[in-house]
Protein backbone atom coordinates (compact mmCIF):
# COMPACT_ATOMS: atom_id res chain seq x y z
CA UNK A 1 0.00 0.00 0.00
CA UNK A 2 1.59 3.21 -1.14
CA UNK A 3 0.76 6.55 0.40
CA UNK A 4 -0.20 9.89 -0.97
CA UNK A 5 2.83 12.06 -1.79
CA UNK A 6 3.15 15.08 0.51
CA UNK A 7 2.61 17.65 -2.18
CA UNK A 8 -0.72 16.19 -3.21
CA UNK A 9 -3.79 17.79 -1.66
CA UNK A 10 -6.06 15.74 0.61
CA UNK A 11 -8.80 14.06 -1.37
CA UNK A 12 -12.20 15.58 -0.74
CA UNK A 13 -14.89 13.37 0.74
CA UNK A 14 -17.05 13.95 -2.30
CA UNK A 15 -14.27 13.06 -4.73
CA UNK A 16 -13.32 9.97 -2.82
CA UNK A 17 -16.92 8.76 -2.62
CA UNK A 18 -17.45 9.38 -6.32
CA UNK A 19 -14.30 7.48 -7.22
CA UNK A 20 -15.24 4.54 -5.00
CA UNK A 21 -18.74 4.38 -6.46
CA UNK A 22 -17.52 4.54 -10.07
CA UNK A 23 -14.85 1.88 -9.56
CA UNK A 24 -17.26 -0.39 -7.70
CA UNK A 25 -19.79 -0.07 -10.51
CA UNK A 26 -17.14 -0.91 -13.11
CA UNK A 27 -16.03 -4.01 -11.23
CA UNK A 28 -19.66 -5.07 -10.69
CA UNK A 29 -20.44 -4.62 -14.38
CA UNK A 30 -17.69 -7.16 -15.15
CA UNK A 31 -18.32 -9.61 -12.31
CA UNK A 32 -22.06 -9.59 -11.73
CA UNK A 33 -23.19 -11.09 -15.06
CA UNK A 34 -20.70 -13.92 -14.57
CA UNK A 35 -21.90 -14.47 -11.00
CA UNK A 36 -25.53 -14.70 -12.12
CA UNK A 37 -24.70 -17.12 -14.92
CA UNK A 38 -22.60 -19.39 -12.70
CA UNK A 39 -25.21 -19.39 -9.94
CA UNK A 40 -28.05 -20.22 -12.34
CA UNK A 41 -26.05 -23.06 -13.84
CA UNK A 42 -25.72 -24.54 -10.37
CA UNK A 43 -29.38 -24.16 -9.40
CA UNK A 44 -32.08 -26.80 -9.33
CA UNK A 45 -35.24 -26.59 -11.40
CA UNK A 46 -37.18 -25.41 -8.39
CA UNK A 47 -34.76 -22.56 -7.66
CA UNK A 48 -34.93 -21.42 -11.28
CA UNK A 49 -38.72 -21.53 -11.30
CA UNK A 50 -38.90 -19.62 -8.04
CA UNK A 51 -36.57 -16.94 -9.36
CA UNK A 52 -38.64 -16.74 -12.52
CA UNK A 53 -35.54 -17.08 -14.67
CA UNK A 54 -31.96 -16.21 -13.77
CA UNK A 55 -31.06 -16.81 -10.15
CA UNK A 56 -29.52 -13.87 -8.30
CA UNK A 57 -29.58 -15.20 -4.73
CA UNK A 58 -28.20 -18.63 -3.88
CA UNK A 59 -30.98 -21.13 -3.27
CA UNK A 60 -31.11 -24.85 -3.82
CA UNK A 61 -27.94 -25.95 -5.61
CA UNK A 62 -27.09 -28.98 -7.73
CA UNK A 63 -24.60 -30.16 -10.32
CA UNK A 64 -27.28 -31.76 -12.49
CA UNK A 65 -26.76 -29.38 -15.39
CA UNK A 66 -23.10 -30.32 -15.60
CA UNK A 67 -23.87 -34.01 -15.24
CA UNK A 68 -26.20 -33.66 -18.19
CA UNK A 69 -23.59 -31.82 -20.29
CA UNK A 70 -20.74 -34.18 -19.57
CA UNK A 71 -22.78 -37.35 -19.79
CA UNK A 72 -21.79 -37.69 -23.43
CA UNK A 73 -23.50 -35.96 -26.32
CA UNK A 74 -23.13 -32.73 -28.20
CA UNK A 75 -21.44 -30.59 -25.55
CA UNK A 76 -19.05 -33.28 -24.36
CA UNK A 77 -17.89 -33.81 -27.92
CA UNK A 78 -17.55 -30.06 -28.56
CA UNK A 79 -15.45 -29.64 -25.42
CA UNK A 80 -13.16 -32.43 -26.60
CA UNK A 81 -12.85 -30.84 -30.05
CA UNK A 82 -12.08 -27.41 -28.63
CA UNK A 83 -9.61 -28.80 -26.12
CA UNK A 84 -7.80 -30.80 -28.79
CA UNK A 85 -7.62 -27.89 -31.21
CA UNK A 86 -6.43 -25.58 -28.43
CA UNK A 87 -3.70 -27.91 -27.17
CA UNK A 88 -2.35 -28.92 -30.57
CA UNK A 89 -2.74 -25.44 -32.01
CA UNK A 90 -1.06 -23.66 -29.12
CA UNK A 91 1.87 -26.06 -29.09
CA UNK A 92 2.37 -25.68 -32.83
CA UNK A 93 1.92 -21.91 -32.85
CA UNK A 94 4.17 -21.32 -29.90
CA UNK A 95 6.87 -23.58 -31.33
CA UNK A 96 6.81 -21.99 -34.78
CA UNK A 97 6.70 -18.48 -33.35
CA UNK A 98 9.61 -19.02 -30.98
CA UNK A 99 11.72 -20.59 -33.72
CA UNK A 100 10.99 -17.86 -36.26
CA UNK A 101 11.35 -15.07 -33.70
CA UNK A 102 14.79 -16.36 -32.76
CA UNK A 103 15.69 -17.02 -36.38
CA UNK A 104 14.94 -13.39 -37.19
CA UNK A 105 16.54 -11.92 -34.09
CA UNK A 106 20.01 -11.36 -35.55
CA UNK A 107 20.26 -8.49 -38.01
CA UNK A 108 22.73 -9.20 -40.77
CA UNK A 109 22.04 -12.91 -41.05
CA UNK A 110 21.25 -14.39 -44.44
CA UNK A 111 17.86 -13.23 -45.81
CA UNK A 112 17.12 -11.48 -42.52
CA UNK A 113 15.64 -8.36 -44.08
CA UNK A 114 13.37 -9.88 -46.75
CA UNK A 115 12.01 -12.52 -44.38
CA UNK A 116 11.27 -10.02 -41.64
CA UNK A 117 9.69 -7.74 -44.21
CA UNK A 118 7.43 -10.59 -45.30
CA UNK A 119 5.97 -10.81 -41.83
CA UNK A 120 5.71 -7.06 -41.32
CA UNK A 121 3.90 -6.62 -44.64
CA UNK A 122 1.03 -8.77 -43.37
CA UNK A 123 0.05 -5.90 -41.07
CA UNK A 124 -0.78 -3.73 -44.03
CA UNK A 125 -2.97 -5.99 -46.08
CA UNK A 126 -5.33 -8.83 -45.25
CA UNK A 127 -6.00 -11.19 -48.15
CA UNK A 128 -9.76 -11.23 -47.72
CA UNK A 129 -12.28 -13.87 -46.77
CA UNK A 130 -13.04 -15.39 -50.17
CA UNK A 131 -9.50 -16.13 -51.44
CA UNK A 132 -8.61 -17.49 -47.99
CA UNK A 133 -11.63 -19.76 -48.05
CA UNK A 134 -10.77 -20.97 -51.55
CA UNK A 135 -7.20 -21.84 -50.50
CA UNK A 136 -8.40 -23.83 -47.52
CA UNK A 137 -10.84 -25.65 -49.76
CA UNK A 138 -8.21 -26.20 -52.42
CA UNK A 139 -5.99 -27.85 -49.79
CA UNK A 140 -8.84 -30.18 -48.86
CA UNK A 141 -9.06 -28.84 -45.32
CA UNK A 142 -12.81 -28.17 -45.24
CA UNK A 143 -14.28 -30.14 -42.33
CA UNK A 144 -10.78 -30.95 -41.10
CA UNK A 145 -9.64 -29.74 -37.69
CA UNK A 146 -6.45 -28.47 -39.33
CA UNK A 147 -8.53 -25.72 -40.93
CA UNK A 148 -8.99 -24.33 -37.42
CA UNK A 149 -5.24 -24.36 -36.77
CA UNK A 150 -3.08 -23.84 -39.85
CA UNK A 151 -4.51 -20.57 -41.26
CA UNK A 152 -4.02 -18.79 -37.93
CA UNK A 153 -1.00 -20.75 -36.72
CA UNK A 154 1.53 -17.92 -36.96
CA UNK A 155 0.52 -14.46 -35.88
CA UNK A 156 2.94 -11.87 -37.23
CA UNK A 157 2.11 -9.64 -34.29
CA UNK A 158 3.07 -12.27 -31.70
CA UNK A 159 6.19 -13.03 -33.68
CA UNK A 160 7.28 -9.40 -33.67
CA UNK A 161 6.57 -9.15 -29.93
CA UNK A 162 8.65 -12.22 -29.24
CA UNK A 163 11.47 -11.11 -31.51
CA UNK A 164 11.63 -7.70 -29.82
CA UNK A 165 11.97 -9.50 -26.51
CA UNK A 166 14.72 -11.83 -27.77
CA UNK A 167 16.65 -8.89 -29.16
CA UNK A 168 16.71 -7.28 -25.73
CA UNK A 169 18.70 -10.18 -24.33
CA UNK A 170 22.26 -8.89 -23.86
CA UNK A 171 24.36 -9.88 -26.87
CA UNK A 172 27.36 -10.78 -24.70
CA UNK A 173 25.51 -13.73 -23.21
CA UNK A 174 24.73 -15.19 -26.61
CA UNK A 175 28.13 -14.33 -28.07
CA UNK A 176 29.99 -16.20 -25.37
CA UNK A 177 27.83 -19.28 -25.92
CA UNK A 178 28.52 -19.08 -29.62
CA UNK A 179 32.24 -18.84 -29.07
CA UNK A 180 32.00 -21.90 -26.88
CA UNK A 181 30.62 -23.67 -29.93
CA UNK A 182 26.97 -24.00 -28.97
CA UNK A 183 24.59 -24.41 -31.91
CA UNK A 184 21.73 -21.96 -32.35
CA UNK A 185 19.16 -24.59 -31.43
CA UNK A 186 21.05 -25.23 -28.20
CA UNK A 187 21.38 -21.51 -27.42
CA UNK A 188 17.66 -21.03 -27.98
CA UNK A 189 16.72 -24.00 -25.81
CA UNK A 190 19.25 -23.57 -23.02
CA UNK A 191 19.76 -19.82 -22.75
CA UNK A 192 17.13 -17.77 -24.55
CA UNK A 193 13.98 -19.68 -23.57
CA UNK A 194 14.75 -19.89 -19.85
CA UNK A 195 15.22 -16.11 -19.90
CA UNK A 196 11.90 -15.57 -21.67
CA UNK A 197 9.38 -17.43 -19.54
CA UNK A 198 7.16 -14.40 -19.05
CA UNK A 199 6.81 -13.47 -22.67
CA UNK A 200 6.36 -17.15 -23.62
CA UNK A 201 3.53 -17.48 -21.10
CA UNK A 202 1.78 -14.37 -22.38
CA UNK A 203 2.10 -15.29 -26.06
CA UNK A 204 1.01 -18.84 -25.21
CA UNK A 205 -2.07 -17.42 -23.52
CA UNK A 206 -2.83 -15.26 -26.56
CA UNK A 207 -2.64 -18.28 -28.85
CA UNK A 208 -4.57 -20.58 -26.52
CA UNK A 209 -7.36 -18.07 -26.03
CA UNK A 210 -7.44 -17.52 -29.78
CA UNK A 211 -7.92 -21.22 -30.47
CA UNK A 212 -10.40 -21.76 -27.65
CA UNK A 213 -12.48 -18.78 -28.81
CA UNK A 214 -12.14 -19.53 -32.53
CA UNK A 215 -15.51 -18.94 -34.11
CA UNK A 216 -15.08 -17.28 -37.49
CA UNK A 217 -12.86 -20.01 -38.95
CA UNK A 218 -15.20 -22.70 -37.69
CA UNK A 219 -18.19 -20.96 -39.27
CA UNK A 220 -16.31 -20.80 -42.55
CA UNK A 221 -14.58 -24.15 -42.65
CA UNK A 222 -16.53 -26.67 -40.57
CA UNK A 223 -19.83 -27.63 -42.17
CA UNK A 224 -20.22 -30.97 -40.43
CA UNK A 225 -21.92 -30.11 -37.15
CA UNK A 226 -20.63 -33.24 -35.45
CA UNK A 227 -17.20 -31.58 -35.64
CA UNK A 228 -18.26 -28.24 -34.23
CA UNK A 229 -16.08 -26.64 -31.57
CA UNK A 230 -17.62 -25.31 -28.39
CA UNK A 231 -18.14 -21.74 -29.57
CA UNK A 232 -20.51 -22.86 -32.32
CA UNK A 233 -22.42 -24.99 -29.83
CA UNK A 234 -22.62 -21.98 -27.57
CA UNK A 235 -24.11 -19.99 -30.40
CA UNK A 236 -26.65 -22.60 -31.39
CA UNK A 237 -27.91 -23.63 -27.98
CA UNK A 238 -27.48 -20.46 -25.98
CA UNK A 239 -27.55 -17.46 -28.25
CA UNK A 240 -30.06 -18.90 -30.71
CA UNK A 241 -31.87 -20.71 -27.95
CA UNK A 242 -32.17 -24.20 -29.40
CA UNK A 243 -33.03 -26.78 -26.75
CA UNK A 244 -30.51 -29.47 -25.88
CA UNK A 245 -33.23 -31.64 -24.37
CA UNK A 246 -36.02 -31.60 -26.97
CA UNK A 247 -38.69 -33.42 -25.00
CA UNK A 248 -38.00 -31.62 -21.78
CA UNK A 249 -41.65 -30.95 -20.93
CA UNK A 250 -42.66 -34.56 -21.40
CA UNK A 251 -39.80 -35.90 -19.31
CA UNK A 252 -40.23 -33.23 -16.66
CA UNK A 253 -43.63 -34.54 -15.70
CA UNK A 254 -42.38 -37.98 -14.76
CA UNK A 255 -42.95 -38.00 -11.02
CA UNK A 256 -39.97 -38.06 -8.70
CA UNK A 257 -37.47 -37.44 -11.44
CA UNK A 258 -36.45 -33.85 -11.99
CA UNK A 259 -34.25 -33.03 -14.94
CA UNK A 260 -32.06 -29.99 -14.66
CA UNK A 261 -33.94 -27.06 -16.15
CA UNK A 262 -33.13 -25.93 -19.65
CA UNK A 263 -31.93 -22.55 -18.44
CA UNK A 264 -29.42 -24.09 -16.05
CA UNK A 265 -28.04 -26.22 -18.88
CA UNK A 266 -27.64 -23.18 -21.10
CA UNK A 267 -25.88 -21.27 -18.37
CA UNK A 268 -23.67 -24.29 -17.76
CA UNK A 269 -22.58 -24.21 -21.42
CA UNK A 270 -21.56 -20.57 -20.95
CA UNK A 271 -19.62 -21.53 -17.84
CA UNK A 272 -17.85 -24.37 -19.65
CA UNK A 273 -16.73 -21.91 -22.33
CA UNK A 274 -15.64 -19.45 -19.66
CA UNK A 275 -13.82 -21.63 -17.15
CA UNK A 276 -10.58 -22.40 -19.02
CA UNK A 277 -10.00 -18.70 -19.56
CA UNK A 278 -10.74 -17.94 -15.90
CA UNK A 279 -8.41 -20.71 -14.77
CA UNK A 280 -5.35 -19.82 -16.83
CA UNK A 281 -5.76 -16.09 -16.64
CA UNK A 282 -4.53 -15.45 -13.06
CA UNK A 283 -1.26 -17.26 -13.76
CA UNK A 284 -0.48 -15.11 -16.73
CA UNK A 285 -1.99 -11.86 -15.54
CA UNK A 286 1.00 -10.83 -13.43
CA UNK A 287 3.12 -10.72 -16.56
CA UNK A 288 0.85 -8.10 -18.11
CA UNK A 289 1.73 -5.67 -15.37
CA UNK A 290 5.41 -6.43 -15.74
CA UNK A 291 5.35 -4.62 -19.01
CA UNK A 292 5.92 -7.60 -21.25
CA UNK A 293 3.32 -6.36 -23.66
CA UNK A 294 3.99 -2.66 -23.36
CA UNK A 295 7.58 -3.08 -24.42
CA UNK A 296 6.37 -5.04 -27.36
CA UNK A 297 3.63 -2.65 -28.38
CA UNK A 298 6.04 0.24 -28.25
CA UNK A 299 8.92 -1.80 -29.66
Amino acid sequence: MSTRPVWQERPTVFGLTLKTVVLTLIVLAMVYPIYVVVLTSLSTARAVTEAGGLVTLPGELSLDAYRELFGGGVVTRAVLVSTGVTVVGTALSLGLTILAAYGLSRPGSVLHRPLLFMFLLTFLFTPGMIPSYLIVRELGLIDSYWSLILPTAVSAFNLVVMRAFFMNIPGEVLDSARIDGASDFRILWRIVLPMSKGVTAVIGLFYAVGYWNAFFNAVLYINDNSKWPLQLILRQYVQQGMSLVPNQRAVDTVAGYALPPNLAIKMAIIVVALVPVLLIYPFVQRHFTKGVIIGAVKG
Partner: protein
Amino acid sequence: MLRRSPPADALTSSAGTRRLPLRARLRRDWQLLAMTVPAVALVIVFHYVPTLGNVIAFQDYSPYDGVTGSPWVGFYNFQWLLSDPEFWNALRNTVTITAFQLVFYFPVPIALAILLDSVLSRRLRLFIQGVVYMPHFFSWVLVVALFQQILGGAGLLAQTLRQAGHEPWNVMTNPDAFIVLVTAQSVWKDAGWGTIIFLAALAAINTNLYEAAAVDGASRWRRLWHITLPGLRPVILLLLILRLGDALNVGFEQFFLQRDAVGSEASEVLDTFVYWRTLMTGAWSYGAAAGLFKGLVGLILIVVANKVAHRFGEQGIYKRS
Protein backbone atom coordinates in the same frame (compact mmCIF):
# COMPACT_ATOMS: atom_id res chain seq x y z
CA MET B 1 41.65 -11.52 -27.34
CA LEU B 2 39.67 -14.21 -29.01
CA ARG B 3 36.73 -11.90 -29.63
CA ARG B 4 38.90 -9.55 -31.64
CA SER B 5 40.13 -12.21 -34.02
CA PRO B 6 38.27 -12.32 -37.38
CA PRO B 7 36.59 -15.73 -37.21
CA ALA B 8 35.10 -15.13 -33.78
CA ASP B 9 34.02 -11.70 -34.84
CA ALA B 10 32.30 -13.07 -37.92
CA LEU B 11 30.68 -15.66 -35.72
CA THR B 12 29.15 -13.21 -33.29
CA SER B 13 28.71 -9.62 -34.30
CA SER B 14 26.44 -8.46 -37.05
CA ALA B 15 28.61 -5.50 -38.04
CA GLY B 16 30.68 -6.06 -41.13
CA THR B 17 29.21 -9.47 -41.95
CA ARG B 18 28.17 -8.28 -45.38
CA ARG B 19 31.78 -8.51 -46.42
CA LEU B 20 31.75 -12.27 -45.88
CA PRO B 21 31.08 -14.45 -48.92
CA LEU B 22 27.55 -15.84 -49.09
CA ARG B 23 28.76 -19.38 -48.59
CA ALA B 24 30.42 -18.52 -45.29
CA ARG B 25 27.35 -16.62 -44.15
CA LEU B 26 25.16 -19.56 -45.07
CA ARG B 27 27.39 -21.92 -43.13
CA ARG B 28 27.04 -19.59 -40.15
CA ASP B 29 23.30 -18.86 -40.47
CA TRP B 30 21.73 -22.02 -41.82
CA GLN B 31 20.26 -22.90 -38.43
CA LEU B 32 18.57 -19.52 -38.16
CA LEU B 33 17.14 -19.99 -41.63
CA ALA B 34 15.91 -23.48 -40.83
CA MET B 35 14.13 -22.10 -37.77
CA THR B 36 12.35 -19.43 -39.79
CA VAL B 37 11.31 -21.55 -42.77
CA PRO B 38 8.21 -23.30 -41.30
CA ALA B 39 6.60 -20.02 -40.22
CA VAL B 40 7.48 -18.43 -43.56
CA ALA B 41 5.89 -21.34 -45.40
CA LEU B 42 2.63 -20.91 -43.48
CA VAL B 43 2.56 -17.17 -44.12
CA ILE B 44 3.13 -17.76 -47.83
CA VAL B 45 0.39 -20.37 -48.10
CA PHE B 46 -2.22 -18.64 -45.95
CA HIS B 47 -1.41 -15.00 -46.58
CA TYR B 48 0.46 -14.36 -49.81
CA VAL B 49 -1.16 -17.01 -51.99
CA PRO B 50 -4.68 -15.80 -51.05
CA THR B 51 -3.55 -12.22 -51.60
CA LEU B 52 -2.62 -13.18 -55.16
CA GLY B 53 -5.86 -15.15 -55.32
CA ASN B 54 -7.67 -11.83 -55.29
CA VAL B 55 -7.24 -11.80 -59.08
CA ILE B 56 -10.51 -13.72 -59.23
CA ALA B 57 -12.15 -10.35 -58.54
CA PHE B 58 -11.41 -9.59 -62.22
CA GLN B 59 -12.78 -12.94 -63.39
CA ASP B 60 -16.04 -14.79 -63.54
CA TYR B 61 -14.57 -17.45 -61.29
CA SER B 62 -16.00 -20.92 -61.08
CA PRO B 63 -14.41 -23.60 -58.89
CA TYR B 64 -14.55 -26.12 -61.76
CA ASP B 65 -12.48 -24.01 -64.14
CA GLY B 66 -10.10 -22.71 -61.47
CA VAL B 67 -8.11 -19.47 -61.59
CA THR B 68 -6.43 -20.40 -64.85
CA GLY B 69 -9.57 -21.51 -66.68
CA SER B 70 -12.09 -18.89 -65.60
CA PRO B 71 -12.88 -16.06 -68.07
CA TRP B 72 -11.62 -12.53 -67.41
CA VAL B 73 -14.27 -9.86 -67.05
CA GLY B 74 -12.28 -6.72 -66.26
CA PHE B 75 -13.94 -4.39 -63.76
CA TYR B 76 -17.39 -5.90 -64.16
CA ASN B 77 -17.58 -7.08 -60.54
CA PHE B 78 -16.59 -3.66 -59.24
CA GLN B 79 -19.24 -1.95 -61.36
CA TRP B 80 -21.76 -4.41 -60.00
CA LEU B 81 -20.53 -3.67 -56.46
CA LEU B 82 -20.89 0.09 -56.82
CA SER B 83 -24.45 -0.26 -58.11
CA ASP B 84 -25.48 -2.61 -55.31
CA PRO B 85 -27.58 -0.85 -52.64
CA GLU B 86 -26.76 -3.58 -50.12
CA PHE B 87 -23.07 -2.88 -50.52
CA TRP B 88 -23.64 0.82 -49.87
CA ASN B 89 -25.73 -0.04 -46.84
CA ALA B 90 -22.89 -2.21 -45.48
CA LEU B 91 -20.31 0.48 -46.20
CA ARG B 92 -22.46 3.16 -44.59
CA ASN B 93 -23.01 1.03 -41.47
CA THR B 94 -19.29 0.28 -41.21
CA VAL B 95 -18.26 3.93 -41.44
CA THR B 96 -21.04 5.08 -39.08
CA ILE B 97 -20.06 2.51 -36.49
CA THR B 98 -16.38 3.50 -36.71
CA ALA B 99 -17.26 7.18 -36.32
CA PHE B 100 -19.62 6.48 -33.42
CA GLN B 101 -17.04 4.36 -31.63
CA LEU B 102 -14.38 7.00 -32.15
CA VAL B 103 -16.49 9.34 -30.04
CA PHE B 104 -17.98 6.92 -27.51
CA TYR B 105 -15.43 4.12 -27.27
CA PHE B 106 -12.04 5.67 -27.92
CA PRO B 107 -11.92 8.06 -24.89
CA VAL B 108 -13.09 5.40 -22.41
CA PRO B 109 -9.74 3.60 -21.94
CA ILE B 110 -7.99 6.95 -21.50
CA ALA B 111 -10.40 8.07 -18.79
CA LEU B 112 -10.32 4.65 -17.14
CA ALA B 113 -6.51 4.60 -17.15
CA ILE B 114 -6.35 8.04 -15.50
CA LEU B 115 -8.88 6.89 -12.93
CA LEU B 116 -6.97 3.66 -12.23
CA ASP B 117 -3.70 5.53 -12.02
CA SER B 118 -5.14 7.71 -9.28
CA VAL B 119 -5.91 4.72 -7.05
CA LEU B 120 -3.23 4.91 -4.39
CA SER B 121 -3.38 1.37 -3.05
CA ARG B 122 -1.27 -0.80 -5.33
CA ARG B 123 -3.08 -3.95 -4.38
CA LEU B 124 -6.51 -2.55 -5.07
CA ARG B 125 -5.31 -1.19 -8.38
CA LEU B 126 -3.89 -4.53 -9.47
CA PHE B 127 -7.15 -6.23 -8.49
CA ILE B 128 -9.25 -3.81 -10.53
CA GLN B 129 -6.85 -4.12 -13.45
CA GLY B 130 -7.15 -7.90 -13.29
CA VAL B 131 -10.94 -7.66 -13.39
CA VAL B 132 -11.21 -5.17 -16.23
CA TYR B 133 -8.64 -6.88 -18.46
CA MET B 134 -10.45 -10.19 -18.24
CA PRO B 135 -13.35 -9.77 -20.70
CA HIS B 136 -10.82 -9.13 -23.45
CA PHE B 137 -10.17 -12.87 -23.38
CA PHE B 138 -13.83 -13.87 -23.77
CA SER B 139 -15.08 -14.81 -27.22
CA TRP B 140 -17.68 -12.65 -28.94
CA VAL B 141 -20.19 -15.48 -28.71
CA LEU B 142 -19.72 -15.46 -24.98
CA VAL B 143 -20.02 -11.68 -24.71
CA VAL B 144 -23.15 -11.58 -26.85
CA ALA B 145 -24.64 -14.48 -24.88
CA LEU B 146 -23.91 -12.70 -21.58
CA PHE B 147 -25.46 -9.46 -22.83
CA GLN B 148 -28.47 -11.44 -23.98
CA GLN B 149 -28.87 -13.01 -20.54
CA ILE B 150 -28.72 -9.62 -18.85
CA LEU B 151 -30.42 -7.26 -21.33
CA GLY B 152 -32.35 -9.58 -23.68
CA GLY B 153 -36.09 -10.25 -23.83
CA ALA B 154 -35.79 -13.21 -21.45
CA GLY B 155 -32.90 -11.66 -19.56
CA LEU B 156 -32.34 -10.44 -16.05
CA LEU B 157 -33.36 -6.83 -16.70
CA ALA B 158 -36.63 -7.80 -18.38
CA GLN B 159 -37.29 -10.33 -15.64
CA THR B 160 -36.75 -7.75 -12.90
CA LEU B 161 -38.90 -5.16 -14.68
CA ARG B 162 -41.69 -7.66 -15.23
CA GLN B 163 -41.68 -8.68 -11.60
CA ALA B 164 -41.87 -5.01 -10.63
CA GLY B 165 -44.92 -4.68 -12.86
CA HIS B 166 -43.34 -2.74 -15.71
CA GLU B 167 -43.40 -3.52 -19.38
CA PRO B 168 -39.89 -4.72 -20.33
CA TRP B 169 -38.24 -3.57 -23.51
CA ASN B 170 -35.73 -5.60 -25.46
CA VAL B 171 -32.52 -3.77 -26.25
CA MET B 172 -31.04 -6.73 -28.09
CA THR B 173 -33.55 -6.71 -30.98
CA ASN B 174 -33.96 -2.98 -31.54
CA PRO B 175 -32.29 -1.94 -34.84
CA ASP B 176 -32.27 1.73 -33.87
CA ALA B 177 -30.34 1.10 -30.68
CA PHE B 178 -28.00 -1.42 -32.31
CA ILE B 179 -25.07 0.96 -32.68
CA VAL B 180 -25.30 1.83 -28.98
CA LEU B 181 -25.52 -1.84 -28.10
CA VAL B 182 -22.44 -2.90 -30.08
CA THR B 183 -20.47 0.03 -28.68
CA ALA B 184 -21.49 -0.92 -25.15
CA GLN B 185 -20.38 -4.49 -25.84
CA SER B 186 -17.04 -3.28 -27.18
CA VAL B 187 -16.52 -1.06 -24.14
CA TRP B 188 -17.38 -3.93 -21.80
CA LYS B 189 -15.07 -6.35 -23.60
CA ASP B 190 -12.06 -4.26 -24.56
CA ALA B 191 -11.96 -0.87 -22.82
CA GLY B 192 -10.21 -2.36 -19.79
CA TRP B 193 -7.58 -4.04 -21.91
CA GLY B 194 -7.15 -0.76 -23.81
CA THR B 195 -5.94 0.95 -20.63
CA ILE B 196 -2.68 -1.02 -20.62
CA ILE B 197 -0.86 1.22 -23.05
CA PHE B 198 -2.16 4.41 -21.40
CA LEU B 199 -1.17 3.17 -17.95
CA ALA B 200 2.35 2.60 -19.26
CA ALA B 201 2.43 6.12 -20.68
CA LEU B 202 1.14 7.49 -17.37
CA ALA B 203 3.82 5.65 -15.44
CA ALA B 204 6.43 7.20 -17.72
CA ILE B 205 5.44 10.77 -16.79
CA ASN B 206 8.00 12.26 -14.45
CA THR B 207 6.40 12.77 -11.01
CA ASN B 208 8.65 15.77 -10.39
CA LEU B 209 6.53 17.65 -12.87
CA TYR B 210 3.44 17.07 -10.74
CA GLU B 211 5.25 18.01 -7.59
CA ALA B 212 6.67 21.21 -9.05
CA ALA B 213 3.26 22.17 -10.44
CA ALA B 214 1.58 21.46 -7.12
CA VAL B 215 4.14 23.54 -5.27
CA ASP B 216 3.47 26.35 -7.73
CA GLY B 217 -0.19 26.14 -6.83
CA ALA B 218 -1.61 24.24 -9.82
CA SER B 219 -4.85 22.50 -8.89
CA ARG B 220 -5.60 18.85 -9.56
CA TRP B 221 -7.47 19.67 -12.78
CA ARG B 222 -4.78 22.05 -14.02
CA ARG B 223 -2.20 19.29 -13.52
CA LEU B 224 -4.41 16.87 -15.43
CA TRP B 225 -4.72 19.35 -18.28
CA HIS B 226 -1.14 20.61 -18.40
CA ILE B 227 0.87 17.54 -17.44
CA THR B 228 -1.12 14.31 -17.73
CA LEU B 229 -2.81 14.92 -21.07
CA PRO B 230 0.32 16.30 -22.80
CA GLY B 231 2.13 13.26 -21.45
CA LEU B 232 -0.42 10.97 -23.07
CA ARG B 233 -0.53 12.90 -26.33
CA PRO B 234 1.89 10.75 -28.35
CA VAL B 235 0.08 7.52 -27.46
CA ILE B 236 -3.36 9.03 -28.03
CA LEU B 237 -2.31 10.34 -31.43
CA LEU B 238 -0.72 7.06 -32.43
CA LEU B 239 -3.76 4.99 -31.47
CA LEU B 240 -6.12 7.49 -33.08
CA ILE B 241 -4.20 7.31 -36.34
CA LEU B 242 -4.08 3.52 -36.20
CA ARG B 243 -7.83 3.42 -35.64
CA LEU B 244 -8.44 5.72 -38.58
CA GLY B 245 -6.23 3.54 -40.75
CA ASP B 246 -8.38 0.62 -39.67
CA ALA B 247 -11.68 2.43 -40.26
CA LEU B 248 -13.25 -0.31 -42.40
CA ASN B 249 -12.54 -3.03 -39.84
CA VAL B 250 -15.22 -3.20 -37.20
CA GLY B 251 -15.01 -6.96 -36.75
CA PHE B 252 -17.02 -9.82 -38.15
CA GLU B 253 -18.25 -11.98 -35.30
CA GLN B 254 -20.06 -9.38 -33.23
CA PHE B 255 -22.20 -8.38 -36.22
CA PHE B 256 -22.60 -11.83 -37.68
CA LEU B 257 -23.96 -13.09 -34.35
CA GLN B 258 -26.56 -10.36 -33.94
CA ARG B 259 -27.75 -10.16 -37.52
CA ASP B 260 -30.75 -12.40 -36.92
CA ALA B 261 -31.88 -10.35 -33.96
CA VAL B 262 -31.80 -6.87 -35.49
CA GLY B 263 -31.85 -7.53 -39.24
CA SER B 264 -29.30 -6.77 -41.94
CA GLU B 265 -30.41 -3.18 -42.45
CA ALA B 266 -28.76 -2.09 -39.22
CA SER B 267 -26.18 -4.80 -38.65
CA GLU B 268 -24.62 -5.51 -42.05
CA VAL B 269 -21.00 -4.42 -42.20
CA LEU B 270 -18.51 -5.02 -45.03
CA ASP B 271 -17.23 -8.34 -43.69
CA THR B 272 -20.64 -9.83 -43.07
CA PHE B 273 -21.76 -8.53 -46.47
CA VAL B 274 -18.99 -10.51 -48.16
CA TYR B 275 -19.91 -13.61 -46.18
CA TRP B 276 -23.63 -13.60 -46.88
CA ARG B 277 -23.33 -12.46 -50.45
CA THR B 278 -20.70 -14.99 -51.46
CA LEU B 279 -20.58 -18.06 -49.32
CA MET B 280 -24.35 -18.31 -49.35
CA THR B 281 -24.78 -17.80 -53.10
CA GLY B 282 -21.46 -18.89 -54.62
CA ALA B 283 -20.74 -15.48 -56.20
CA TRP B 284 -17.01 -15.95 -55.57
CA SER B 285 -15.69 -13.22 -57.83
CA TYR B 286 -18.18 -10.69 -56.53
CA GLY B 287 -17.24 -11.38 -52.92
CA ALA B 288 -13.55 -11.22 -53.76
CA ALA B 289 -14.16 -7.83 -55.40
CA ALA B 290 -15.85 -6.55 -52.24
CA GLY B 291 -13.01 -7.91 -50.11
CA LEU B 292 -10.39 -6.42 -52.41
CA PHE B 293 -12.16 -3.05 -52.28
CA LYS B 294 -12.04 -3.16 -48.49
CA GLY B 295 -8.40 -4.28 -48.45
CA LEU B 296 -7.26 -1.58 -50.86
CA VAL B 297 -9.12 1.21 -49.07
CA GLY B 298 -7.64 -0.09 -45.81
CA LEU B 299 -4.15 -0.06 -47.33
CA ILE B 300 -4.57 3.52 -48.56
CA LEU B 301 -5.91 4.62 -45.18
CA ILE B 302 -2.97 3.06 -43.34
CA VAL B 303 -0.41 4.66 -45.63
CA VAL B 304 -2.12 8.06 -45.34
CA ALA B 305 -2.50 7.69 -41.57
CA ASN B 306 1.16 6.85 -41.29
CA LYS B 307 2.10 9.93 -43.33
CA VAL B 308 0.01 12.00 -40.94
CA ALA B 309 1.76 10.34 -38.02
CA HIS B 310 5.17 11.30 -39.39
CA ARG B 311 3.85 14.81 -39.98
CA PHE B 312 2.98 15.01 -36.29
CA GLY B 313 6.46 13.85 -35.44
CA GLU B 314 5.28 10.42 -34.29
CA GLN B 315 6.78 7.10 -35.22
CA GLY B 316 3.79 5.62 -36.98
CA ILE B 317 3.60 1.90 -37.55
CA TYR B 318 6.26 1.20 -40.13
CA LYS B 319 9.05 1.57 -37.63
CA ARG B 320 7.66 -1.10 -35.41
CA SER B 321 10.96 -2.82 -34.94
